[in-house]
């Protein structure tokens, strides 16, 4: 499934909920299902401090693809992280770097990704893209070498 198809699938998943509370019930469920990041990986360099909630992000690059694990102390933030990981995990760095995460707007959760929301999510997306770009540059230079 392409990155674009995954976004479309999430939008369809959310289409069945017309009530905000139902939507959040689903997000909370996603938050509970998200495999937690190992305690030893919750280190300072992986922490993204938000004003409201904290996020930990662990990115890695293997076999030409990016892999993400993340966690948060707030369950709603964690649920939204789950959605972001569903879209971006196991994708090529070039696709991640250029992708537009329009699904967030379409399911009405864009407020959570606004930089002024300060729940750490906007910084997390930025960091995911940065690590994809980094992987891309490293990959390029390795190939050239």
């Amino acid at each position: 499934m392409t990155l674009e198809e995954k976004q479309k699938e999430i939008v369809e998943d959310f289409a069945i909920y017309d009530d905000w509370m139902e939507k959040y019930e689903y997000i909370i469920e996603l938050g509970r299902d998200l495999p937690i990041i190992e305690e030893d990986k919750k280190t300072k360099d992986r922490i993204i401090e938000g004003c409201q909630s904290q996020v930990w992000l662990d990115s890695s690059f293997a076999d030409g693809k990016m892999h993400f694990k993340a966690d948060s102390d707030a369950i709603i933030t964690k649920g939204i992280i789950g959605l972001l990981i569903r879209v971006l995990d196991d994708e090529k760095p070039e696709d991640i770097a250029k992708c537009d995460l329009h699904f967030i707007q379409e399911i009405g959760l864009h407020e959570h990704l606004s930089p002024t929301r300060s729940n750490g999510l906007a910084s997390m997306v930025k960091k995911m893209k940065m690590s994809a770009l980094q992987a891309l540059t490293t990959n390029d230079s390795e190939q050239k070498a």
Partner: protein
Amino acid sequence: MDSTIKRKFSVREIREDFPALRQTIYGKNLIYFDNGATSQKPQYVLDAINQYYSKDNANIHRGVHHLSQKATSEYEASRKFIAAYLNAKSSDEIIFTKGTTDGINLVASSYGHLLNAGDEILISAMEHHSNIVPWQMLCERKGCVLKVIPINKKGEIIQDEYEKLLSSKTKLVAVTHISNSLGTINPIKEMIQKAHAVGAKVLIDGAQSIQHDKIDVKDLDCDFFVFSGHKVFGPTGIGVLYGKETLLDRMPPYQGGGDMILKVTFDKTTYNELPYKFEAGTPHIAGGICLGKALEYLNQFDIESIKKHETELADYAQDLLLTFEDMNIIGESKKKTSVVSFIVDGIHPFDMGTLLDKQGIAVRTGHHCTQPLMDFYKIPGTVRASFAFYNTKEEIDTFIAAVEKSIGMLK
């Protein structure tokens, strides 16, 4: 508005005065419990803002034309009204600022100029960042020493510790009248007396008290009192620094520019008198006028009726919240204003706040710009419901049902 005969205190009628309260959010009637962050504005203030910009707009103090004189006289009348409202000795003691933060920065910079290395400044452990950081910056600049008066678990300043910290080295005590995170009302009058006994000056952060109680600066005998207009039903971007005239006179200007000068040459500039010495540039004229209107609006009511209603709301909310399992009220002083800060074990305040929002309820979540205080309680933050005189018990019932629903979803 005639304030000699007080208006009957009717919450239903008061609510009619606040158009922002009559709206739906996500299809629910808005319940506004974020009054600690900012208050809604009555029609009386909104009309005054409209009147100023649609009819009276002109720059003040320098114009010879009719509108300029009208705007000047309204702006200065507002200053006079505020001086009388606070029981200041004269309107020269009322400096218009951008707000509480601006007022504290003015004092830190300008009064700070008179301090020397080794001089001590005392703040409490429950201060808002805006009553911490300006002093830290001053200490870095001048080599002064910042000392923190500890609090107990209930969220009260430990008076014995305060007395121990006071000495001839103490030059300034900067404390909040009411804690924005906990709601604690500090015994500032006694604290001011104790500070004066060692020769220290006192700045009171009144951001959370001006809307809940009558402030009498003469009776308190504080040296500085700062507050923001927007928390007392007035506009944003305007506030007041009250300072004793003798002190303000000794302090150098804060910012340079127009209005604060008597004469400028390239060799030397002489500064204007109080209060203009501290008001460089074109001020927030509409803000100054309308802050006066907001205090006029508030002054229609007997403050004791407001206090009684607000205390009832806070007690009612707190009692109902305590019926939930794993509920912790943060800030348990017996002397509290209408703020209820809480955290439920296992539930992050951000999650609770998000779900309450979607049920039409505006509360504040997070550290409330008091990170050291949250560190003291070892919590990431709280959910804070802060009430104003236009809130009702019915709204609290709806809020409690929403909290129950949220706990059900998050546990």
